């Protein structure tokens, strides 16, 4: 779907280190990829390269033209005069017929708990509500590729879970998803994790492989307490990866009860 070959983005000042430095990467369709790395490691830039918004040096081959993109700041992409109009904007551009547009807009509003806010002016929304609006607008087009820059930032814990469900639904429909995040609960459900540091690709593997990798501690990941516990148990040699699934404490509790 996308292939990057030795992609480079230079810093504005030539004496500074490169912002993206020799990134080679292939994204196949139907993958759910999480992009992690410390602040300033190049996650947002890489997403913009994948979206075709930035033209770096090096080889870039991008398959489908239709991309749903979520910017880090929702204010960067909200254009409608009301919440419903903003969600409809992309559909209008695509020439979707009005009856279908209504159905799809209503569906997206419901998906992101915005039904009660449909006629509200976006500037009167809270930050978390704006984030849900930007998410709804990027999902409503059902693009083959969704690129989401920290979708859960600004969301409260309930909205975070809901947004994750929507991403998993999109994935079931065959959407390729690339999500930048610092949160371990969003990392462990992906098929593949790409780790960036100082603009370089330093990890490319499964979430399971990441947990045991020495790179995991240098990627700025915010581990939940449960995931920290998993990592400690594996470090102590007591975690059996085959029996212990992320976020599933049942085998662990059964083991504790039996001991």
């Amino acid at each position, binding site marked *: 779907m996308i292939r990057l070959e030795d992609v480079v983005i230079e810093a*504005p000042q030539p004496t500074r280190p490169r912002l993206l430095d020799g990134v080679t990467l292939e994204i196949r369709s139907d993958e759910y990829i999480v992009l992690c*790395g*410390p*602040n*300033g*490691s190049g996650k*947002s830039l890489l997403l913009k390269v994948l979206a075709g918004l930035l033209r770096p040096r090096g080889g870039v081959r991008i398959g489908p033209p239709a991309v749903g993109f979520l910017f*880090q*700041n929702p*204010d960067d992409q909200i254009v409608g005069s009301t919440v419903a109009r903003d969600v409809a904007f992309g559909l209008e551009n695509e020439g979707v017929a009005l009856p279908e547009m209504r159905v799809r807009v209503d569906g997206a509003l419901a998906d992101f708990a915005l039904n009660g806010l449909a006629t*509200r*002016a976006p500037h*009167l*929304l*809270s*930050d*978390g*509500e704006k*984030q*849900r609006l930007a998410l709804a607008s990027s999902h409503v087009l059902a693009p083959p590729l969704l690129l989401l820059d*920290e979708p859960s*930032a*600004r*969301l*409260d*814990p*309930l*909205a*975070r*879970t809901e947004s994750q469900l929507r991403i998993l639904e999109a994935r079931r429909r065959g959407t390729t998803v690339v999500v930048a995040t*610092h949160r371990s609960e969003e990392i462990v459900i992906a098929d593949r994790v790409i780790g960036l540091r100082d603009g370089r690709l330093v990890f490319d593997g499964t979430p399971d492989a990441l947990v045991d990798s020495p790179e995991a501690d240098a*990627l*700025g*990941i*915010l*581990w*939940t*307490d*449960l995931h*920290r*516990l998993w*990592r*400690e*148990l594996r*470090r*102590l*040699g*007591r975690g*059996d990866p085959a029996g212990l699934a992320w*976020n*599933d*404490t049942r085998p*662990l*509790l059964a*083991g*504790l*009860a*039996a*001991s």
Partner: protein
Amino acid sequence: MSSGRQAPIVELRNVGWWSPSHPEHRALQAVDLTIRSGDRIGVVGRSGSGKTTLALILAGLLEPAEGTVTRAAPAGRLAVGVVFQEAEASFFEETVLEDVAFGPRNLGLPDPLERARAALARVGLDPDRVGGQAPETLSGGEARRAAIASILAADPAFVVFDEPTTGLDAEGVARLRTILAGLRDECRGYVLISHELELVVAETERVVVLHHGRPHWEGPSRSLGSGLPEPWPRADLGFREVSDAALAQGWLDDPSPTPRAVAAAIAPRLIR
């Protein structure tokens, strides 16, 4: 709530706010809140519950539509500094260093550039590396740290942090906690608005829960250890189940153990 330490810096009585164009939507109502020097207060609630509106009123950036706000600014000092949710919104100078120096310069504090350099170092940004950069070239997480530095450099008596962890990596969150601890040691209070319950429980004394613009619950932060009242989900349920099981077995003494402590307690007893 009164801590009895000093005269209040800000006092809100029956405060409410709504947009003149949308009076039917009460963003905030019936808020009573007294903030004294050194208070550490958490504010939590779902998106749209009125948290940011409260922050803007505390800072004096929004006049309440009803109720009264009484302020007692310490002489010659900025009473309340706000670290905005939108870090980018607070930049307007050409370089990061000049931007951070703007506050102290505007307030007539001595050595504004030195203060700016110290504040950048305090948030973990190398003043020599980022000081000369244009603010818009910072990454999202770096911009947030620079915004915190801008407020620290202005030396306010009280700081309001509106979702300060948004976009921060693990090191950034750890550094924020160091900054909060530093403010506590200086007896400088803060309001911490956050969706991160663990952070709020650890770094504040009392919490106000807002729901649909109204105070919904108020009490000691520590009592939130077992989760917020409905509709809030319990944080990291799986970890709590395991640590509660280990506690019930008598393998742990600490009722809020770290993951490392739980792992050490249960690992020898687990069947491979």
